């Protein structure tokens, strides 16, 4: 029987001719990632391993993004621990405040992940790089420590769900709406232990940023990874960002899928995930009672890229944020920040009454900047709306696209662009 795209990448990295779902393998890795929450734990574990050095100083990436710029003394200690380790082990890809960004926006931008790679990161949204045709998945700190030491990780080869896409999005609809729609359809454990493989002629109509957003949230359906075929769009991105050679894997025609879903992109509408699970989705036009909001966050590894801010700026330009709504704009990397600055968006956001922050995960995980009080509601372009995710256990997070977030910021309630 044939292999899925994910299985082919895993087989190649395990040195096997073929693998099948359920096989337990040891695979060689092209990149190992950690952040200021998970790397300090991994560093403690690393010290218990029989080695002094990392397996390859160019294949480890350490990014202080969650609580950085340091939010308090404890966070400062964690960042310091990571910084000293990076220095001590001569890690090439350590990104200090000033050059850092939210890890999953930063690594592709720096060209550290290319098609055909096998990547693990001690962060659940490591699945983002599937957008580039790589196998990438989130693991814990012990896995990260072992991978830093050996360049290897164990995997159970996943089976897969196939999402066959056709058509093109209508205006005001983007990758976020599609992935929220899918999670609403299959549930937060609908892809548990499985790959989510996206295929079909509709892929050509997805920008690389749409694909990053979609692959990013594979984990919100329980998926091990999300992955896109490599096409002209991918190759253009890879050539612009990396000198590393990449490898294109394609699924076999007779690969086995647990389930195949047919989706016409033209059928997707602006979609919002209600508290407290990403699967609690409604299309904006299904909302009958107005849902007033206190805060809007546009940023994160899901939707904190240049095109996301362009969409928001195009909606907010020359208008004012609704009274009583706090709007936080957080470009995900320094480069995105600069690009937004040069495009004039940052001025436009500030003039509209929003505030602009340095790159950080910050409010996305209730870390710092934009924590919610009891009873407060936030529309956020992030990826999780669990109980207490952005602050008080009685606060609420609604997940949405940058377009919906910007429209909601102006109207003070959850809204789509059509309502402006």
């Amino acid at each position: 029987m044939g292999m899925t795209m994910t299985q082919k990448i895993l087989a190649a990295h395990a040195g096997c001719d073929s693998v099948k779902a359920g096989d337990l393998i040891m695979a060689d890795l092209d990149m190992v990632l950690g952040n200021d929450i998970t790397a300090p734990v991994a560093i403690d574990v690393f010290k218990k391993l029989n080695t002094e050095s990392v397996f390859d100083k160019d294949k480890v990436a350490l990014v202080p993004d969650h609580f950085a710029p340091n939010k308090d003394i404890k966070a400062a200690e964690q960042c310091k621990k990571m910084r000293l380790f990076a220095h001590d082990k001569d890690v090439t890809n350590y990104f200090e405040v000033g050059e850092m960004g939210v890890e999953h926006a930063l690594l592709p931008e720096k060209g550290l992940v290319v098609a055909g790679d096998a990547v693990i990161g001690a962060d659940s949204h490591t699945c983002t790089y599937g957008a580039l045709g790589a196998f990438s998945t989130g693991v814990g700190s012990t896995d990260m420590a072992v991978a830093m030491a050996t360049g290897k990780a164990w995997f159970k080869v996943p089976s897969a769900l196939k999402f066959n896409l056709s058509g093109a999005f209508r205006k005001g609809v983007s990758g976020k709406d599609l992935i929220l729609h899918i999670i609403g359809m299959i549930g937060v454990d609908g892809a548990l232990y499985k790959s989510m493989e996206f295929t079909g002629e509709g892929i050509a109509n997805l920008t690389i940023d749409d694909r990053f957003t979609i692959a990013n949230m594979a984990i919100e359906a329980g998926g091990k990874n999300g992955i896109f075929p490599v096409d002209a769009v991918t190759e253009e991105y890879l050539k612009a960002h990396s000198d590393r050679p990449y490898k294109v894997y394609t699924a076999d025609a007779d690969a086995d899928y647990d389930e195949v879903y047919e989706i016409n992109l033209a059928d997707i509408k602006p979609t919002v995930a209600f508290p407290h699970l990403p699967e609690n989705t409604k299309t904006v036009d299904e909302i009958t009672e107005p849902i007033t909001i206190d805060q809007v966050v546009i940023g994160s590894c899901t939707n904190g890229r240049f095109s996301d801010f362009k969409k928001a700026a195009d909606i907010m330009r020359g208008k004012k944020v609704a009274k009583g709504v706090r709007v936080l704009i957080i470009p995900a990397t320094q480069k995105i920040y600069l690009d937004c600055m040069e495009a004039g968006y940052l001025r436009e956001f500030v003039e509209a009454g929003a505030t602009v922050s340095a790159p950080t995960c910050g409010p996305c995980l209730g870390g710092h900047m934009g924590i919610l009080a009891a009873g407060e509601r936030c529309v956020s372009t992030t990826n999780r709306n669990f109980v207490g995710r952005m602050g008080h256990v009685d606060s609420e997070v609604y997940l949405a696209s940058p377009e919906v977030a910007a429209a909601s910021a102006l109207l003070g309630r959850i809204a789509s662009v059509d309502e402006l």
Partner: protein
Amino acid sequence: MKAKGKVFRYGDNVDTDVIIPARYLNTSDPMELAKYCMCDIDQDFVKQVQEGDIIVADANFGCGSSREHAPLAIKTAGVSCVIAASFARIFYRNSINIGLPILESPEAVANIEAGDEVEVDFDTGAITNVTKGQSYQGQAFPPFMQEIISAGGLVPYINENLLEK
């Protein structure tokens, strides 16, 4: 290896943000983390949990972030085993890697209630409900994972197999 204790019972999709909220992640000290274990879903958990107690939950336990702090907090709080209908995959591998025994058994989950006294035999996957006088079968680990667990976690396993001095 066996475990025996009183059951704390939870529902579907218990996520890592309620197991250990991110606001407490500015430390990685297990004792510190254990103090806030489950606090956003069950404020009484840390007050009541005793060494050896067992968590039983429905589907997709441990979904959400990759934070190993979640199984660490549970283990350090004294929990000897988590039984669920299914586990989120990163939580599953983290638990194996740090040596927190976990078992999948939809049958056990359907019958066990809060406060039941339950005994688990990790070698066979057998689960006994002492309170109700019932027994259920949990899924035993494949040999590769057995090796990791019997080595005492991924670190000793790797030291023995890949990084021999």
